[in-house]
């Protein structure tokens, strides 16, 4: 490529793009490796599974696999998965919001915010199997907190129905990476809340409650909802933590899919594809909603 051509490119990008067929035909080579890679290792495998979900073992088109998803076992798996994701996303968003608000608008010492943000960066990546180990050492039957409650306060939390290897235990464990993620993604939105809005509201005679109800929350709503959805998708696809924590005792979709890939427990490979397809549909929808909401939220952050 001639350097003159690129000097022209800086003058007017579009003119160069429309300049000549020969130049364009070489320029696309620069992005070809990326698209080839994405096609082979990201889009291709996914599309293959999606097609497989609509085929029977002989390769003929069918909707039977999708219907087969609506059996009690698989529906129960989806239900527990969605419940755990909803609970951990809801509490994660709630607590994360409080923490983020405290560090952004709480008049705390200046060192608090960078410390919390750095720790959040670490904790949101501290998922998977080590996290399960950490919670077994904390809230397991011989965990530090469990023993503390039993010896110091005389309360056996396990006799009150708590079990780390259950819905509530999994939710509490997931919160360890959900809350920090919320802090990281909601902090910029809270930064965007201008002091003037609050001052303007109080000049006009609004109370604290009215300011939150009529100014702050409507502005924050798309961000909050968007973050909630991102957190939902984040925990919906998580396998490793649940696997290390509960083995296969908790019947959630990723664990079921894991078992299916390992040993075809559903006795139908195409039903496995349908299971994966269902996961893509759920995470895909939540992410699309998230993107749409983020676009709405950004209108206030200019």
């Amino acid at each position: 490529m001639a350097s003159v051509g690129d000097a022209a490119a800086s003058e007017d990008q579009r003119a160069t793009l429309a300049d000549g067929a020969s130049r364009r035909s070489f320029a696309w080579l620069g992005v070809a490796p990326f698209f080839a890679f994405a096609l082979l290792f990201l889009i291709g495998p996914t599309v293959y599974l999606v097609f497989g979900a609509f085929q029977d073992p002989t390769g003929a088109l069918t909707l039977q696999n999708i219907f087969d998803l609506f059996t009690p076992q698989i529906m129960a798996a989806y239900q527990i998965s969605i419940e755990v994701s909803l609970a951990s996303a809801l509490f994660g968003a709630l607590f994360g919001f409080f923490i983020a608000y405290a560090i952004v608008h709480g008049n705390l010492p200046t060192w608090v915010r960078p410390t919390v943000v750095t720790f959040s960066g670490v904790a949101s990546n501290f998922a998977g199997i080590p996290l399960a180990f950490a919670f077994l050492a904390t809230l397991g039957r011989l965990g530090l907190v469990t023993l503390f409650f039993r010896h110091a306060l005389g309360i056996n939390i396990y006799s009150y129905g708590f079990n780390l290897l259950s819905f509530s235990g999994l939710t509490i464990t997931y919160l360890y990476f959900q809350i920090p993620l919320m802090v990281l993604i909601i902090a910029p939105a809270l930064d965007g809340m201008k002091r003037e809005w609050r001052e303007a509201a109080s000049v006009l005679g609004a109370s604290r409650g009215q300011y939150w109800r009529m100014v702050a929350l409507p502005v924050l709503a798309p961000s909050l909802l968007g973050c909630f959805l991102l957190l939902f998708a984040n925990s919906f696809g998580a396998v490793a933590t649940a696997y290390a924590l509960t083995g296969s005792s908790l019947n959630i979709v990723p664990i079921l899919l894991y078992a299916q890939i390992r040993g075809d427990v559903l006795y139908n490979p195409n039903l496995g594809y349908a299971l994966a397809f269902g996961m893509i549909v759920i995470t895909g929808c939540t992410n699309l909603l998230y993107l749409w909401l983020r676009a709405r939220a950004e209108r206030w952050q200019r």
Partner: protein
Amino acid sequence: MKKSLPIGPIVVVVLAALYFVLPLIATLNFSLSMLRGVWSFEAYRVVFHDERFRSTFTFSVVAALCTIVLGALLIVPTAYWVRLKFPRMRPLVEFITLLPLVIPPIVLVFGYIRLYNSSSILPFTGSAMGTNVLLVLGYVVLSLPYMFRAVDTGMAAIDIRTLTEAAESLGAKRTTILFGVILPNVKAAVLSGAFLTFAIVMGEFVLASLLNRPAFGPYLALMGANRAYEPAALAVIAFAVTWVCMGMLQVFGSQTPGRRRSGRSLFRFARRANR
């Protein structure tokens, strides 16, 4: 504005600190109490003397390094070229790099297993080496969102167009521009993406487990299922690895070059060209 003590925020932060620090203390405590009645590093000693720990840890380190090199080689030229030549294609590329956050890793690896089995056109899983390659490629996919975002932000901070023109007027070739001019300028961005990738790959379980590779993640799961104290020690080690990565991320992420507009980045460029 009142100048009173912010009680509410303090309570929130202290409670949060409790929730986040307690599991760490409990894990540390558990990992040190393998011998009855005394504190000891026995669990760590056992772990470090375990041959499988050393081999799986090394395997994952090598996999992570390969992932970083391959990811950087894929992403840096793409991000550069898209910014320079196809700015209107950037949303599409960004969307593709965000897809790994939408498609769960377990679905991705399921597709790999079915698509690249030993009877397909690209039989990656036919041999151990091929499976290793597939694993690393899968890790590159998982790292795409972080790598692309880091590099693209780095590119936005420097004036790549002016840099390219300046290098071209001095007679530099495409590869020289990319590796001698652009890459040094986005080095900090690449490194911050790299440390995040390293942290992700070290603890990754699903891909390695389902592709049957002897990586650190499956080893962790195996220990968790069979031992009591060693998993706590391993969790502490894993957490330390994550901390080191994030610490490096902070160090390198804060020294992004060319933040002060093109004048400084040109100066940097000139200085590098002097070498």
